[in-house]
């Protein structure tokens, strides 16, 4: 299996890598022809906070050199543009199209090269079992093993992975958005990232052998259902079986 050398992402090729059917992930930088459209969109939607040349401000971070994957992730998940920069950006229906996200990514990448391109994941050769192992090691601590997400410290949360597309999952792993750690090619190979993405895709419709998944949030809802329905029906049965004592 083809595995990228550990420095492959540090300086990604500016030209499109030749797509190979055996490559687990192909990183593509958006075409330069989109730069003019991206410049217009950036000035409309991003410049107020991120600055004219994406150099950042007291409100928002510097975007130079972060790469197309970062830009694409924040826009296509609907997190950007953001109304209130003081709270954690949440996933919502995106305001810009995928094409517009690519255009902005092309423009920002043209200002300063670097960072990974937009990944496209080959799920056919991915190993879901290996993905589950790696997910439990590197992801489940925050996102939980069912991918439903959980609270962290100081008003921060690990979001649910259910709305995420394969590309977005790979982008998040490689770029580490917000408080999420960044997993570079030295930590996880492209094949390993593809395995994890395959497992996250499986989580969208997991095989719930025990019956209803109850939102996959674990013992809290399960206990609630057990107490209300199981204990409740036991009480009704007890009321029917028993009789009032005669005085």
């Amino acid at each position, binding site marked *: 299996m083809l595995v990228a050398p*550990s*420095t492959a992402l540090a300086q990604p090729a500016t030209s499109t890598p030749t797509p190979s059917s055996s490559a687990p992930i192909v990183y593509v930088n958006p075409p330069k022809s989109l730069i003019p459209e991206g410049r217009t969109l950036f000035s409309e939607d991003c410049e107020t906070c991120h600055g004219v040349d994406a150099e950042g401000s007291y409100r928002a971070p510097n975007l130079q050199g972060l790469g197309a994957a970062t830009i694409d992730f924040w826009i296509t998940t609907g997190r950007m543009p953001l109304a209130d920069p003081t709270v954690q950006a949440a996933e919502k229906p995106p305001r810009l199209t995928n094409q517009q996200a690519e255009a902005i990514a092309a423009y920002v990448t043209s200002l300063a090269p670097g960072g990974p391109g937009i990944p496209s994941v080959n799920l056919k050769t991915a190993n879901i079992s290996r993905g589950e192992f790696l997910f439990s*090691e*590197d992801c489940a*601590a*925050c996102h939980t093993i069912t991918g439903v997400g*959980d609270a*962290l*410290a*100081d008003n*921060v949360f690990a979001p649910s992975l259910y709305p995420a597309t394969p590309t977005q999952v790979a982008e998040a792993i490689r770029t*580490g958005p*917000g*408080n*999420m*750690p*960044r*997993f*570079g090619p*030295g*930590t996880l190979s492209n094949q390993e990232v593809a395995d994890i993405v395959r497992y996250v895709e499986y989580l969208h419709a997991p095989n719930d*052998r*025990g*019956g209803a998944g109850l939102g996959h949030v674990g013992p809290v809802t399960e206990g609630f259902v057990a107490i209300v329905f199981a204990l409740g029906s036991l009480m009704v049965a007890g009321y*029917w*079986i028993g*009789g009032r004592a*005669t005085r």
Partner: protein
Amino acid sequence: MTTSKVRPTSPDHEDAYDRPVIERLIAVSFTLSVLATVGLGVTYWLGGQPQVEGALLFVALGGIGVGIVAWGKYLVPQGPYVQERHELRSDDVEREAMHASLGRGLRQLERRSFLLRLLGASVGAFGLINLFPFIRSLGPVPGKSLFLTDWKPGSRLVTASGRVVTENDLEVGGLLTVFPEGYENSPMNAIDQVVLVRPATTDLVTRPGRETWGPKGYLAFSKVCTHAGCPVGLYQQLTQQLLCPCHQSLFDVLTGATNVFGPAPRPLPQLPLYIDGEGVLRAQAGFDEPVGPGFWERGA
């Protein structure tokens, strides 16, 4: 023994319900149970399906239960009935006879006091030997194991899969769980687990006296929470905090994993690192304090 109704029930009591209808319902209940049991057997035989089997088991057992309860509640004459107990105290003649019998036996035993003492000694010795499995069941004596981990001077850092960690493996904001080489699959590796983070690319000093511990921005801390021993694996890389999922203890990475919130009583012990000539991350030494929760012999 006398049996009497405390309060006479009306002779019409049993007819308060429509008996043929009740009988039919009970019959239906038992029949449903039989059908469900047959269905359960067939489903199991055909390879099984957990939800269907569960539902059929519910009907099979529930049918029996509902039938029995309804039978007892609606078709059987209702009490309450009282059965008088006989006198609990034995009469005086019996008590006198027993005292006399015990007294005779006691005198017989006391005549052979030497044998009686030997009997006591043998039973006592056997009782003592029974303490041995009890003591063993308390587990091995911890000895120095609470103070020591498998990290030695020069231990190479490896991942859970055994891959050696080199200086280019983590990007800024990266996280990795590592073990001392050779112990990644050890049954005792829970105390060896270390969370490796990289907040920067330049050497980091978390506290005075730890000037060389964080080469090229790599910091390594024991992953075992100092409160209750949970794995502290939640790394918030923007705020440089490590969070324990069990009781929300929060540790500030850049000041040496200082405990800043929650029940953890101490910072996470830091593992001193160095990078060897081949770029491989190694431990300068083991931890300079016991990892994990406090224990009696640890002291403050």
